[in-house]
């Protein structure tokens, strides 16, 4: 690494901060993207299940079971 002079620490800290902020933004964007995709998949899957329900509609809809 080239000689950064007496104040090397501050230069490194500054560049570290830049790296941190950039990686932080990239990470935020990717994590958010993945979580939205997951929620979308779950919701669409639930919606499809409702339109073509595999199992017969649960008994509860007809009337409340008396304990």
């Amino acid at each position: 690494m080239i000689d950064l002079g007496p104040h090397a620490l501050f230069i490194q800290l500054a560049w570290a901060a830049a790296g941190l902020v950039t990686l932080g933004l990239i990470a935020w964007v990717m994590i958010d993207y993945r979580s939205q995709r997951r929620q979308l998949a779950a919701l669409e899957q639930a919606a499809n299940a409702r339109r073509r329900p595999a199992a017969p509609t649960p008994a509860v809809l007809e009337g409340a079971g008396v304990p």
Partner: protein
Amino acid sequence: MALIDLANPTRFLAFARAAIPIAGVLAAGLLAVGIYLAFFVAPEDYQQGATVRILYIHVPSAWLGMACYVVMTLSALGTLVWKHPLADVSQKAAAPIGAAFTLLCLVTGALWGRPMWGTYWVWDARLTSTLVLLLIYLGLIALWRTVEDPGRAGRAAAVLTLVGAVNIPIIKFSVDWWNTLHQPTSVIRLGGPTIHSSILTPLLIMAIGATALFVALHLSAMRNEILRRRVRTLRILAAQRGATA
């Protein structure tokens, strides 16, 4: 590709899927070149020595912090005036990125100031204005975090952004006036010496690289925001469908 074509979210998502990697690669390339030049080619400053290398992050992040606010102002106009459907998506996506770069500008400014002025923070006119800009950004983000309905939040944030845009020059002027009025201890102007070309070229490359990074991040954040709204509408539909159950 007129702006109107991008109005349709699905077409925008297709555009984004193509544009984000390109912008990302462009940003990575330019920043790599810029960093190399900044550390191995550019000379040290005759006064500040090596600390001038912080310039290569400080100036681009300051520039991006302000450019991002311009993007938000245009988006605000898009929301209120041209009623562009994706304008408030662009505005909400830009705010955190702008705030992050403004914060980076302040942090790098403080780290640069420490060796030069002996203190992390000086109420220098430009640094103070940047700090106020950060406050405006955080206020806008807080606004989005309190209003649930995206449409209403978008319009409210648009009005606040436009009011902010009108006030920034006034704030800038009054902070400068406030700063010179009290004549603090002698402060080396942040700009430093007239920019010599050997320092200027890496700076420009870094700036363009950072802009490409901003474009990539902004498009991705917009894509996320569009998906977030789809999740919201699907949830409302799920509830309505639930009603008939």
